[in-house]
């Protein structure tokens, strides 16, 4: 399909979905009317910019079924979004939605090189979470042998992997590492098994982790992306080139916007990912702000797929900093630190004022077995951290080495950013 044909299809589907939500969902009707937007007036994809955004709170406020755009009679399944904070949200699927989802997940598995000859071990949880059943239906649609083992019972996972001849593993990246470790303890040489690819998602992971998994399991580790508000897994997937995730643009419109101004950013620049579902009937979302940070990977993929690619999610808008005009995500700093021996991945970003200027200092813990007598080596370590941060984030931050274990450990979400600007009297 050419870009022009795709855009024509997208526009047709967009107009249908806008009319559908305006007609059936109170929240959208109110938002559109307040914005003076008549769905029929949308005559190009550019017109999408005038359509109001949708946020997670809209879904929470409509709990449980308020955002459904189809009558419950037509809904055949519900799932729920993993609410890390506050109330869960419910998403509903019509039979068409389930069928489209299966197609998209079959596409995802195929993207990882999967075919009807594969044995797919589905280790994502089955239930309200979208992961397990999402991959399951896709694997069946592809015609692969589907092993619905769900999560847990790690030793049995290893046995099944060995005995059933699993070729594709679907789970979270951290669980893949646990499986490798457990196999080692059981004396099973995973690297000698027929396993050849993993489709990993549902949590953020880094390039370092990818290399670790690929070494430990001798697989191609493929990043997949999705969120239950938009569909579940199947929104985007890496191909075997492992250079960005192809967005299934025939079903989803992707936009990258500046999270502050909500203006679109040019291709290649990072910002917040916004999705509009084009085909969903049960619970379409219009310009849904994911809070995930990514960018469009410019250029064409050598694999031949023409759908545009989004970079692996590098952070969340919730903890984004803007330093001298550059968007900085603490998770990027963490990724840099994870690759440097001698420092712990514990860090804190301290914002302060020096005169009228914002000053940013990254406090990085040295590990306890560092040779503390060697000032030169400590200096080298500090400069190395600073230069690798500069290389990864394109911004020069002051790095301060701090004593081992001096950064507060927290049980839940670590406090990575300390804003000391107001304490100093502000601007």
């Amino acid at each position, binding site marked *: 399909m050419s870009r022009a044909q795709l855009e024509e299809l997208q526009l047709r589907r967009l107009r249908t979905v806008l009319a559908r939500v305006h007609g059936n969902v109170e929240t959208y009707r109110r938002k559109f009317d307040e914005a003076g937007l008549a769905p029929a007036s949308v005559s190009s994809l550019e017109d999408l910019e005038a359509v109001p955004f949708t946020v997670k709170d809209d879904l929470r406020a409509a709990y449980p079924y308020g955002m459904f755009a189809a009558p419950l009679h037509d809904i055949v399944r519900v799932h729920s979004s993993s609410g890390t904070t506050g109330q869960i949200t419910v998403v509903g699927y019509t039979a068409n939605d389930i069928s489209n989802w299966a197609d998209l997940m079959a596409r995802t598995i195929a993207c990882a090189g999967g075919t009807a000859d594969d044995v797919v071990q589905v280790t994502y949880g089955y239930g309200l979470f979208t992961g397990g059943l999402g991959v399951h239906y896709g694997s069946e649609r592809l015609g692969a042998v589907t092993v619905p083992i769900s999560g847990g019972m790690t030793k049995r996972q290893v046995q099944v992997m060995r005995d059933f001849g699993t070729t594709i593993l679907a789970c979270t990246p951290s669980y893949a590492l646990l499986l490798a470790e457990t196999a080692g303890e059981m004396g099973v040489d995973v690297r000698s098994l027929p396993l050849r690819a993993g489709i990993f998602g549902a949590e953020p992971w880094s390039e370092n982790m990818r290399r670790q998994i690929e070494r430990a399991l001798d697989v191609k580790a493929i990043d997949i992306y999705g969120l239950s508000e938009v569909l579940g897994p199947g929104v985007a997937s890496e191909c075997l080139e492992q250079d960005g995730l192809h967005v299934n643009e025939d079903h989803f419109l992707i936009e990258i916007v500046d999270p502050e101004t909500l203006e679109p950013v040019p291709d290649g620049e990072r910002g917040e990912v916004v999705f509009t579902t084009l085909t969903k009937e049960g619970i379409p979302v219009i310009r849904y702000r994911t809070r995930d940070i990514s960018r469009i990977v410019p250029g064409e993929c050598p694999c031949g797929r023409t759908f545009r690619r989004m970079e692996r999610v590098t952070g969340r808008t919730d903890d984004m900093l803007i330093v001298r005009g550059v968007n900085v995500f603490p998770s990027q700093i963490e990724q840099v630190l994870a690759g440097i021996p001698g420092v712990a991945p514990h860090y804190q970003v301290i914002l302060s004022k020096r005169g009228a200027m914002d000053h940013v200092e990254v406090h990085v813990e040295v590990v306890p077995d*560092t040779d503390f*007598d060697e000032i030169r080596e400590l200096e080298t370590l500090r400069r190395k951290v600073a230069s690798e941060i500069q290389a990864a984030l394109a911004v020069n931050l002051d790095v301060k080495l*701090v004593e081992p274990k001096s950064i507060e450990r927290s049980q839940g979400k670590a406090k990575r950013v300390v804003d000391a600007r107001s304490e100093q009297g502000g601007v």
Partner: protein
Amino acid sequence: MVEQVSVFLENEPGHLAELTRALAAAGINMRALVVADTAEFGVVRIICDRPRAAKEALEASGFGVTLTRVLAVQMPDRPGGLAQVVGVLSDAGVNIEYMYAFVEPGADAAVDIVRVDDPKRAAEALEDAGVRCLRAEDLYATEDAGSS
């Protein structure tokens, strides 16, 4: 050779005080303490009677600590004494990483603490030149004998 306690210290108010309190609480007797600092951080080097106990106490207080083998050279008590020591090391092809000196209580001679890249060769060269290197027992003899 003697063991020196090297402690990583952030350049923050109160950290040195905390370090000295931790050593006092552990009953560590110090002979020398020097701070080498850069703009970003400091390294505190300590010669004390029980280096291992000092390391444990400091680590328990959250400090990063390394024990380093250094030479404790008894300085020849005459003009040119230091020049001789440095000369011997330089002739032996040994690099000096840093040095600092302190005066032993009740003695005329100073003790020079020297960290070199090749301690073994340095010690042999100094011995050959008739310069005495102290052992831990030499340094702490007073404390051991006089402790009550």
